[in-house]
Each structure stands twice: as C-alpha cells, then as structure tokens.
C-alpha cells in the first residue's frame, strides 16, 4: 500500500530536497558553531541546541557541492537517524509538502552532483518541481567517508 507522507523541503544550491517529517526534530536558524578539530572536513563543528551538544554537517560539503555562503536564509535541520542526532546546514528550508510513496521514482544515476546511493528517489511536484528525497542512513554512513577521506589524503 502506498502511504501518504509529509516531507520537509529544503534547498541546496539550485535543487530542492526532501526529508520525511518524522526524521526532523526541529529546524533552527544558524547557531554559533564550535569548530571540532581532527574530524571530517564537512563536519562544521558542534552547536548547543538547548543544552544538548549536536554535531552539524554542511550537507552541501557532504555531497561535494560547491561551498555556499551562509545567509539569513541558512537553516540547520536537526534530524534523528538510528539514535544519532545530527544537524544539516542547508541553504534554506521553507516548505512542507504531502507526498505519496508512489510519487517517488528511482533516481537517475546523478542528480545535481549527488551520488545515487544517497538518494531514495525523485518525486515530481506538479509540472515543474522535482524533489530529491534523501536516504539519510546512507548520508550518515561513516564507513564510506573514512575510506573517502583517506583517499583525499
């Protein structure tokens, strides 16, 4: 049975992405970030979210997209995936849409420079809009990062 779901829509560069609303704990404006040395380059550091220290990731950096300036549109989306709390820095987040599981199609090999394995699929919104649904487990999968980082030297 295809299920209806609510999806938080955010922007990275020119593309629109989606995360299921159940995964999202809160969406915050930019917070002061404390840099954490000796970790992955896309880990911007940690923030204080009401007493809990949460690591934040530059999601663009995670997908090796060109770096974007932080503006007053920049948001941190705090997600919870298998016991881990992580913040994603995104260019903006300002929409919630209803989707049906059937609307999601298998992703083409490359979408906006993001590797297919990070994607759950692509959903069509109306005629023009394409929404890229993220596979959060893969995005937060660290085993691959470690080999990647060591390749970069």
């Amino acid at each position, binding site marked *: 049975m295809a299920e209806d779901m609510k999806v938080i829509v955010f922007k990275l560069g020119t593309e629109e992405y989606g995360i299921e609303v159940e995964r999202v704990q809160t969406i915050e404006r930019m917070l*002061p970030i*404390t840099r954490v040395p*000796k970790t992955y380059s896309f880990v911007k550091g940690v*923030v*204080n979210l*009401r007493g*809990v*220290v949460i690591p934040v990731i530059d999601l663009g950096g995670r997908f090796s997209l060109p770096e974007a300036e932080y503006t007053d549109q920049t948001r941190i989306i705090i997600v919870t995936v298998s016991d*881990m*709390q992580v913040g994603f820095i995104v260019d903006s987040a300002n929409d919630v849409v209803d989707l049906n599981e059937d609307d999601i199609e298998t992703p083409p090999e490359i979408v906006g420079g993001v590797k297919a394995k990070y994607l759950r699929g692509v959903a069509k919104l109306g005629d023009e809009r394409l929404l890229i649904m993220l596979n959060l487990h893969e995005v937060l999968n660290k085993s691959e990062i470690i080999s990647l980082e060591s390749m970069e030297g």
Partner: protein
Amino acid sequence: MDMNQYLSMFIDESNDHLQSLNEKMLELEQSPEDLSIVQVIFRSAHTLKGMAATMGFEDLASLTHKMENVLDLVRNEKLQMKESIFDVLFQSLDALESMVQDIMAGGEGKLDVSHIVSSLQAIEKGEESDPSSIEVSKDSNTGSATSMPALDEFQNSVLIQSIQAGQGVMFIRVIISRTSQLKSVRAYMVFDLLERSGDVVKTEPSVEQIEQDQFEYEFSLYYITQMQSEELKKAILNISEIEEVHVIPLTEEMLGLGANEAAAAAEVIEKPEVIAEAISEADTNSKNTETPKAVPGDEKEKTVRAAAKTNTAPAASKTIRVDIERLDVLMNLFSELLIDRSRLEQLSNELEHTDLIETVAHMSRVSSDLQNIVLKLRMVPVDTVFNRFPRMIRDLAKSLNKKVDLVITGADTELDRTVIDEIGDPLVHLLRNAVDHGVESISTRVESGKSETGTIQLRAFHSGNHVFIEIEDDGAGIYRDKLVKVAISRGVVTEAESAAMTDQQVFQLLFAPGFSTAETISDISGRGVGLDVVKAKITSLGGNVTIHSVPGKGTNFSVQLPLTLSIISAMLIKLGSEKYAIPLSSIVETGIVKKEKIRMVHGTKMISFREALVPFVSLAEFFDVEDYSDEAEDEIEIVVIRKGEQLAALAIDDFIGQNEIVIKTLGKYLPNIQGISGATILGDGQVALIIDPNGLIK
C-alpha cells in the same frame, strides 16, 4: 495480563534476591549452625520462586522450589549443612543467575538443570526425612480460616522465641474481594508486603496452593514482625481488592496453649484493652528471657560475615528505581538552568536593580542546592559492585586450594553511577590477582609463620574529590629485584634505567603491556597479563592506580577515582577565538616559558620542567587553530598535564579561569576525536571542547 511491564521490575528484584542469596549462603558457610540465616535464605528463595511463578518462568520456579525443599529440611533441623550441600546450592544459584541473565536478554529463562535438580533431590532423600514435612501440609481444608491453623512444634517454638526476643507475633487473616480477577496475585502482593518487614511462618492454605490459585478468597498466616497490628492492617488494606484484614497479636501464653485453645483465646483478645495488656506482658517476658540465639562459628574465621543481625526484620526500603536515562535528561535540563543562572547573574549585575539582584542571588542559592541533590541522585554505593566479590573469592580460593578471607570496608561509599558501571572489571582483575599471586599457598604461609588463611582487604573511602578503592593482601609481596630482572629480560627497561628507578616506578612496571612475573601463567590471572588493561581502564575514567608492597608482608593496590564523571572542575583556556577546557585533575602546573627555552630533541620540541625534559605540545598546531599561533609569541603560556607518570607541556594562548563544567558527549555521529574527550556549554551558551590529556600524551 501483560507481564512485560513487570519484567524489568522482576529482573531487578530477582537480581537483588540472587545477590542476597549468595551473600547469605557465604555467611552460612561460615556458621552453618545458625538457623536464622537459613530462614533468611529460605525467605529469599521463596519470594524468588513466587515471582518467577507469577511471571510464568517455570524452570526458574521449579529449581527454586527444589532448593527450598532442601532448605526447609535444614531449617527444620532435619538436615545438617555440609560442604557438598553448599556446593550444590551454589551451583543452583549459578543456574538461577544464568536463567535470569537469559530472561534479561529476552529469553524464556530456560536452562537444562536436570543434574542439579537430581543432586538436590538426592540431598533431600539422602538424609532420612519425613517427606510430608517437605511440602507444607496440604490436607487442611481451605475454607475454615476462622480457626487458627495448627502449628508444628518447631514453628511454635520459633514464634515463642520471637516473642521472647521482643518481636511481635501476629495471626493474620486476609479476605480478598470476590470480584478480584487475580486473587493469587493479590495474595502474592500481601506476602511481598509482609516479607519486607518480617517473617511469614506458616500459611493456611499452603503457599503453593495460594500460588496455584487453589484457595477460596481468604487465607491466614502467622507473622513475626516489629510492626504494630493497626499499622500492619492499614498497610495490607492499602493493596487493592483486599476486602477484610484481621490482625491478632499473639502472646507466649496463647502459643503455649496450643493452636485450638489459642484460637479461642484469640477471639477474646480481639479487644483493644486486652491486646494492650497482652503486649505489656510479652514485653516483661522478653526482658526476663535470654536471647536464645547463640552465635556459633570459629572466632578466627571472621570474613565478610556481617554481625548476626539476620534475626531482625529488614527495614522496608524507601527507594524507587529510576531509569538512568531519565536522570540524564534531568541532568541536561539542569545544566541549562545553570547556564541561564550565570547569564541572569551577569544581567542583574549590569542592571544594578536591587530587587532583581536579590532575587537572582536567592535563585542562585536554591539552584546550587538543587545541583547538589541532582548530583547525589546519580550516586550509588560501591556495594553494588562489591557484593559479587565474596562469592568470587570463595570460588577462586577453593579452586586454588588456598584459604582466603575477604574483608570489605566502606561498602557504603558512594560513586557516580557511570563510574560504578565501569569499575567492576578492573576490580575483579585486581582481586583475582591478589588471590592468585598475592596470597601464598597454605603450606608456604605456614612455613613463613603466617596463619593458614590469607586476608584480602577491600576498602573504599572518600578523600577530597576522589574515592579510593584499595585492595590489600597479606601475601608474598613484590620483590623489586625479581621484577626488575623480568622487566630487563622482556626488554621493558634497560639495566641502567632500572637502577635509577624508584620503588614506585618499578612497581608501575607491572602495568606495562605484556608483562608478567608469574613463573607459570595460570588461567586465573598472570600478574601483568591484563594489568595493563586495568590501568588503561582506570586512567580512562580519570583515575590512577598506585602499588605499595613490602616483600613478604603483602601488596596494596590503590585505585583513585573521581567522584563523578558528569561534572568536573576544569581550567578554561583560549586559543585565539576558540575556548577549550582542561580537566583540573590532570593539570600539574601552569606557567610561562620563554621561546628560546624550547629545545629540539630527536625532532620533538621539549622544555625542561623541574629538572626533567618534558615534551612541548603546541595545542594551536595540534588542533589546526586558524587565528592563533604560538610561533609569534616570545613568552608562551603553558599548562603542564599529567597522564600517570608522564608529563607534557601544552602551549596555549591565554587562561580564562577555573570553572565547574558539565560534561557532554559530542554525540554518536562524531568519531573518537584525538585529544578531545567531550564538550561543555559555557555560561554564554557557547560550546567549548574538553581536552583529553590521555590523547595528547603518547
């Protein structure tokens, strides 16, 4: 009925009972004549059985039942405790423990215990015993609880002795509401309540029947307690679906009369004035009579045995179990409050409004009291770790053919729960080590003029912001020369190095990886094999181990631990715009060095500190700090930190000051970061990373 919600309670309580069974059995082993201990064991086993049966863990219930049968013979003096019985009983306890473990892991608690059961049955039958006495009499009819059930001679004498010892003896009749769906559970709840503050001596119908629901809506029992009858009545009525409770205090005379006459007398006595009289009479009686219990057992064999206080009813414990995660949440919320407090203090000082300043000052006082309480909530007595050791030492000593007494002191010393969880394994290792290598064999001990039985002291005590746990044996001690010889042969030190070492440094060699002085490495422990792991674990907890030893006299391992892992004193420092916290416990000194004093030795920067060369670590360089570098400075601020015996000088930008900080983790996503042990939130809401000295000293 959904039992899942009771499962965690069942597991906790089963563990408690198993622990107390273990303890009491050890106690009994020291004084096998003391029937009061058997009573306690019996009661514990019985409760365990009841709980297991209620929860539907049949194997557990039936094994406990078999144990109970044996214990019943013992307490009725139909069977003498002896070593073989102890061994089988201990085996049963182990089996029960693994069943509970299995249940904890989500299993059914099933285990093949047929051999233990057959040994238990053999014991049961081995002595000539009247089988009918094993089962509590089943013949009496269940309906007529108005008259008192007959007591056998032993039970009668127990009751009389209790009265003589100043305890109250009651006859209790409980009627459960006819609408109750689960009368056996209600009955169980009554027993559970009663067993918390006294002893149930005899029930009618038998406990087995009650448990199996084979009774009408009422049952009666004899009960020994310190509680007053009214209080007792109220407590029982508090259990829901209990319709009626009759509590009749009994006197020695009534018991002396025999059951039937006593019943008649009881009818009369259920009037308050007479009760008062009866009680005062019982009082005078108890003054005249000697306490009948003599404590048998050998004087010199004073081990873990707590003074024979087993006869007194255990005080009902006024505690609740709280999920540690909830405490963590409380802790988090509280640290937020602390942050807001410092912000408010700052604001009120700026605004200079008198009322505001006063209110904030008051709030500060209240919140620091709160802080103390919240911290104390996480404190657990070390007893929770220590309590498994007596049994372990017993088994170890037995398998090594040694005689060892374990003396525990300071078991009520409290430590943070997180430390408690971690400290068990290192202590097990040190204790095994003490039994295996510390205490000599019986013959060696006798030759060197010592008593046959070796003593291991396990001590815990507070000192300042630390808790010390010491393990001291009166065994062979450590011979420096022998140790140095082995160390040289293993290439741990050179001969020249060893000559300059202090005794303490030599002893520390024991903690070197892969080091062992035992000539033959036993399966129990090789001194050194694994001691490096012990050391590493304790250091990771922010603690330290030191060894003192006098050859021929014994060895003392002293473990120093921080009181808590969640709030520590730290020095806040600056590296450019970044702030870091260094735990005060690892700081030796702070100071300033001139740039030209930094020397290069084998490619590493060193400075001389108190006549020793200490590695110089530039934190800014280590952490790739962008807006600060000590290259530009002529005089560099340093913090000398310590990891065990090793020192290092950390170059920093500036000191901010000393502060109490709440330790937070960096979250599961971030890997273990070299040199960082966690984070804390400062007064302004900013996150500062906590430096891990262990990661900076290689």
